[in-house]
Structure formats: C-alpha cells, structure tokens
C-alpha cells in the first residue's frame, strides 16, 4: 500500500518538476499573455463597458483572465506532457511501472491543477498593479479554481491519450478549448449578448466556471453560484470518469 502511494506521489512530483523546469515557458509566458490582454482590453474598454454596478471594466476583466489562465494551463499541462511522452516513447517508463489508473489520473490531473493555480496566482499578483483586489466570497474562488483546473487537467489527459500527432493536439486546443474559453464570458457578461447567444453560452460549462469564480471576487454573478457549482461539479465527474476509464483500458497506450 505504501508503495502504491509513493508511486503516485513520485509521478505527481515528476509531472510538477517537468513544467517547473521550463517555468519560463509554462508559467511566465502565460502570465505575460494575460497581462497583455488586460492592458489592451482594459485600456480600450474601461470607459465604455459597465457590467456590474460599482465594478470597473478592468476589475471585472481580472477574474476572467485569471480563470482563463488557470483553465488553459491546466489543460496544456497534462495534454502536452502525455503527447510528448507518447511521441518520444518515454511513456514506456510509466507503462512498465506498477502504477494503477488512479495513480496516473491523480498525478496528471493533480500536476495540471498545480500548474493552473501557479499561473492563476501569478496573473492575479501582477494584476494587483492595475486594480485593487476584492474577494467578497473567497471560498468560491478556491472551489471554482480547483474544480475547473481539475476538469481541464482531466480533459487534457483525454486529449493526450487520444491524439497521435502534435497537429491533432493543436486542433483540439484551437477548435475546442480556445472557442469555449473565449465564448464563456471572460471579456464580457453574457447578459450583454442577444438572447440566442445567451442561451448558447448557458450550454458552455466554461461559462459557469468563469461566472462562479468571478462571484468569489464581487459577490455578484450572472447565475447562482450553486447552479455553477452543480454544472462544473457534474462536468468534472463526467470528464474525470471518462479519463479514468480510458486509463484503465489503456486506450491507445497499451496495445
């Protein structure tokens, strides 16, 4: 039993060490990207867009950018680690080890959560220069950050198992992850959309992650945070269930 736990811990450690060794690319770069978004959109839209009363546009934008960074980096971590190991062949070191599908899942999703939270915290710290930090209901911040990162880490696992080439992975990222994050209300409140697109947005689980996360900062949100919690929680259970199943059957990794 001790061996099982330590195997899981080692894989988690290895996955964290992997991105930390290239943190300039995996942490600093996404922080810079988010800050550029903030500078440009904040500058252009600060005086034109008012989403919630008493919340400036820059302040409104910050939680969205933080959560977007958390989600995208959580996805990037597990997916790129897996596809690189598959293509270079060093996944064999894990395949011959006595690690259960739970160990794989906990380590890959866990390291994704660590990377998501580290990048998110980095973005948040830098944005303190631009607007004061509010945290009206901080528990929502923690809950949605962890749950969202866990879901995206699991989704990255699925994508990493499924993709056989880097361009398939890029397609997954560009045609699924990017549109879903951008159309989730990072840059705007979905209430500002025409009713048809509001309806569409409500089908996007990313919307609930962003909205629930933002609730923690301002104490106001487009929908009830409990509804968001239910949607994000269900999405997490569904996606992680699929990831665990694929790991258990060795989908595309044990032939």
């Amino acid at each position, binding site marked *: 039993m*001790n*061996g*099982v736990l*330590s*195997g899981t*811990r*080692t*894989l988690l*450690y*290895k996955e964290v*060490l*992997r991105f930390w*060794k*290239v943190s300039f690319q995996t942490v600093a770069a996404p922080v810079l990207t988010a800050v550029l978004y903030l500078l440009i959109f904040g500058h252009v839209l600060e005086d034109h867009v008012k989403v919630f009363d008493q919340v400036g546009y820059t302040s409104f934008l910050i939680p969205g950018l933080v959560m977007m960074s958390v989600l995208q980096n959580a996805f990037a971590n597990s997916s790129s680690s897996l596809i690189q*190991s598959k293509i*270079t*062949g*060093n996944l*064999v*070191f*894990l*395949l*011959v*080890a*006595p*690690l*259960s599908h739970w160990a794989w899942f906990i380590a890959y999703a866990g390291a994704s959560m660590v990377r998501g939270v580290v990048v998110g915290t980095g973005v948040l710290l830098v944005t303190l220069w631009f607007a004061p930090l509010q945290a009206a209901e901080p528990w929502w911040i923690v809950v949605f950050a962890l749950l969202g990162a866990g879901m995206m880490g699991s989704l990255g696992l699925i994508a990493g198992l499924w993709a056989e080439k880097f361009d398939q992975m890029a397609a997954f990222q560009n045609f699924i992850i990017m549109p879903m994050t951008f159309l989730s209300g990072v840059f705007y409140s979905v209430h500002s959309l025409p009713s048809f697109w509001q309806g569409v947005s409500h089908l996007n689980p990313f919307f609930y992650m962003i909205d629930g996360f933002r609730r923690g900062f301002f104490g106001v949100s487009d929908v009830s945070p409990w509804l968001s919690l239910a949607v994000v929680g269900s999405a997490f259970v569904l996606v992680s269930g699929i990831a665990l199943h694929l790991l258990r059957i*060795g989908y595309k990794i*044990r*032939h």
Partner: protein
Amino acid sequence: MPAISFQHVAKTYTGARSLVRALDDVSFDIEPGEFFGLLGPNGAGKTTLISILAGLARASGGTVSVLGHDVVSEYAVARRSLGIVPQELVFDPFFTVREALRIQGGYFGVHGNDAWIDELLSELGLADKADANMRQLSGGMKRRVLVAQALVHKPPVIVLDEPTAGVDVELRQTLWQFVARLNRQGHTVLLTTHYLEEAEALCGRIAMLKQGRVVALDKTSALLAGTASTMLRFKTDRALPVALASRARVTGRIVQLQAHDAREVELLLATLREGGVEPEDLEIGRADLEDVFLEIMQGEPARVAA
C-alpha cells in the same frame, strides 16, 4: 515456480488487409536463475511477447505470469518483479541521469536508494554523468541509463530486448559482464538478441520464434549438438559447382558448407576440385548457433525438448 511462464499466448491484430497473427500458442517457462535467450528473425514476435510480459501490450489469448503472478490481474506485483530494458532508445529530456533514476525507482515505491543508484552508475560507467541532462548523453550512454533504469528497483527478473543493437564493442562487453554477474547473483535474465554469438556465449537455454510460433526450445548445448556438427569454411572468387551452390551459405567471398562427418568433408572437397574451385583460407570448425538458427529458420521440423 517459474520466473516467467508463457501459457498458450496468442496475439492477433487487424492489419492493413487481414488479421495478423503475431503470436500463435506460445508456451514455455523460464526457471529462476536461468539466462534464457529468445531468438528469431525480425517480425517473429519476440518484441510482442516481451511487450505482453511487460504490460505494454495485451494478449489476445493465453496467460503470462512472473514468479506466479499474472501480468494482467496481478500487474502491480508482477511488474515489481520485472526490470525491462526496452529496445527503443528512449529518454526523458527534462531530467538528469540521477533524477531519472530516482523517479523510476519512486514509481516502484523505492526511495532513498542513492547507494544502489551510485553502484549502478559506476558499474555502467556513468558515474561522471550523474548530473548531466539526458539530452547531453551519447546514444551509448543513453542505452546504459536504460539498463540502470530497469535495475533501479532491484528486480529478480531482468528482460533485455535487443540491448546491444547499435552499441559499440566496449559497451557490449561492459554490459554483458554486468548482466552475467547479476545472473550469477541469482537474477533471472531473459534476452532477445540478433547477435547469435552473444546468445551462444551467455544463454543456458534458448527458444526460437518463427512467425509467432516456438520452433525450437532447448539447452543451447543440445541445440548445437543436434545440428550437423561440422562446418567447412573457405574463401573463393569462383562460382560453386551446381551440386553445392544450393546448400552453401555465401557471405561475400566466404562460403560455408555443412558436413556431418569426415567422409562428407572429403566428398565436398572432391566436388569443389572437380568444379575447378580452389578454396582459400580453408578451415573446418564446429557448427555454431548461427548454423542451428539458419537450419531451423529454413523450415526444419520444430525441435522442442520434452
């Protein structure tokens, strides 16, 4: 209890046009402490069999166990007993040699074993590379790290899948001395190789695979004794007489002919003289494993010891 047991192992997969039968009812046991050789031409199914043993692939039928533990239902215990040196030269570019070894040990629940890691590094001539990044190592050095990674959790059963392919002579010597010593200390070794002289020198028992089936399984000495025991070797630039051309093995200028006894040697020499062939550097030697291998692969009936 056998160290490794293959029972009726089958592996089929869907190829481009038809069902490919990579392994067909493969059964044999390897006893603890054996140095066992698995030979066969490319595509015979050696690596498929090793992959099923290691958990990299799944059998379509049959069972495989390591020290009595099924590799599917008791995979954790089975894999803890196994150290696999993969055929492909793979490495994780993010880590140093020592990090890679610590991490690999950790997967198996082994921690704080730096003394053993240091011993492995010095045995494999890697001591001064411990803190070098994997990317900075030459191909031969990476191969040594693969061996160290397979041994870091001190497995009782060691599997080497063509570990000396493309490796220089010096490393081959180092590697075999090391593996032979581990075998003397009680480790079971399963080796697949293309170098038949290696198998002949190291392996006590040998299985030969051909098109997914076991076509020979016996002690190395018995396999050697069972074949035509004498080989006639010489060099020539002339074409061989028709009667001999079909049974000769020709490699460039070198010609090898099998003979069963002295009388047949005389007969061969007479035929050559009549054909106008003047043998240069003539020697008469014992058949080696390569001769046995070729004889069996050319379709002799299966020779499996009871």
